[in-house]
């Protein structure tokens, strides 16, 4: 079978898989952003129990492998009475894992905001909450977006692992087609190209655009 016929026959299936990949990616990113913010802030808490809890969480998820966490959530949690669908398990594992990495980026971003900003907010008698929300957080986006963009590309790549817990994403469809046709070069080659195109021509330009917006908002563009 020529490559053209292969594409005509199997590209729609691979495209369906790619749509699922995007869905996993979007949901996991939303969860990861939330987790990063919460644990990044907790890490800076002056209360030692809150800070300790965040440190344990971050070290735990960064110290073990994503695949192990994924398998644990999908295969072991049901033994304890909590059964989650493959999709939810995948999103949860990805979100919690990348959230741990993101939390360190958020912490670094907050610490990089000049000290004078805190002092000025304090002098204006702002509450700690509004100081964070109105003064500090708006300034961290330009700092955290470049490393966060790298992490997001890593997340897109990591979504391929959810195929191993039977989420029908691009990788899963590719494995399926490979198992029935043995056209390995065509199917995995095409899958690689689709992943590359998603990262290079969609995700990275989008993240650059976000960086530009963030820079413009605080007048640095």
């Amino acid at each position: 079978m020529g490559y053209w016929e292969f594409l005509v026959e199997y590209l729609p299936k691979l495209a369906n898989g790619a749509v699922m990949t995007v869905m996993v990616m979007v949901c996991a990113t939303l969860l990861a952003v939330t987790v990063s913010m919460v644990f990044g802030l907790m890490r800076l808490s002056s209360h030692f129990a809150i800070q300790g809890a965040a440190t344990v969480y971050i070290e735990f998820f960064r110290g073990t492998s994503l695949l192990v966490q994924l398998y644990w959530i999908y295969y072991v949690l049901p033994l304890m009475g909590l059964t989650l669908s493959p999709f939810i398990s995948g999103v949860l594992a990805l979100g919690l894992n990348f959230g741990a990495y993101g939390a360190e980026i958020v912490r670094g971003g907050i610490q990089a905001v000049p000290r004078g900003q805190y002092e000025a907010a304090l002098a204006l008698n702002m509450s700690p909450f509004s100081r964070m929300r109105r003064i500090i957080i708006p300034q961290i986006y330009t700092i955290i977006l470049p490393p966060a963009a790298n992490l997001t590309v890593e997340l897109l790549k990591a979504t391929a692992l959810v195929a191993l817990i039977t989420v029908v994403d691009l990788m899963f469809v590719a494995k399926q087609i490979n198992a029935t046709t043995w056209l390995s070069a065509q199917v995995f080659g095409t899958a690689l190209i689709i992943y590359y195109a998603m990262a290079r021509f969609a995700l990275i330009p989008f993240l650059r655009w976000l960086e530009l917006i963030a820079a413009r908002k605080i007048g640095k563009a």
Partner: protein
Amino acid sequence: MEWRWEFAWEILPRMLWATGNTLLAAGVGYTIAVVLGLVLMLGQRTPYRLINMPVRELVEFVRSTPLLVQLFFVFFVAPQFGIKLSAWTAGMLTIGLHFGTYLSEVYRGALEGVPKSQWEACRALNFTTGYTYRRVILPQAFPIALPGMGNYLVGIFKDTPLLATIGVAELMHTANALGAETYRYLEPYTMVGFIFLIISLPTAMGLRRLEAAVARAQGNTRH
């Protein structure tokens, strides 16, 4: 299902043996990555466009596609061209290439981190290019590259479970097999998690110490 200590105790020898394989895979993969990274970095730095453009594109491509798909690609496609690769060979080559592209970026950043004036001073002293690299540039680039190199050492270790999917008998593969044999997944998977934690946390801490020590040593030689 609750945790059974005697079962955990019983499977521990097999798990530890598999941990050896995991460490071996990480070590071999990292060695390949360190060398390949150097080659890719040099390829990107050559002034010939015919070489540096394709290398640049290759690095970009490998860096932005999933390791898992690459593993399957190498493992299944090589036999189509008559090359018989064992799971181990395919795994080591793929992981080596994948992390080699990351390391090439680390090296590139480190070399660019050495001030340009160092090159100019060496030229003024009439040093050869080789001597400049060996005695002036590389010793200064090394501490800049060290954190990145350390992170990817831990990174490669944490990505070795992916090798289980093509049948390398490392830790995750053994846990899967034990689960399938005994229908008990709780202990094997949990133990895998803790073994990873026990190895990667001290390694990461040791690397931070090493970075500090190297930075100190460099600071001392400079003054």
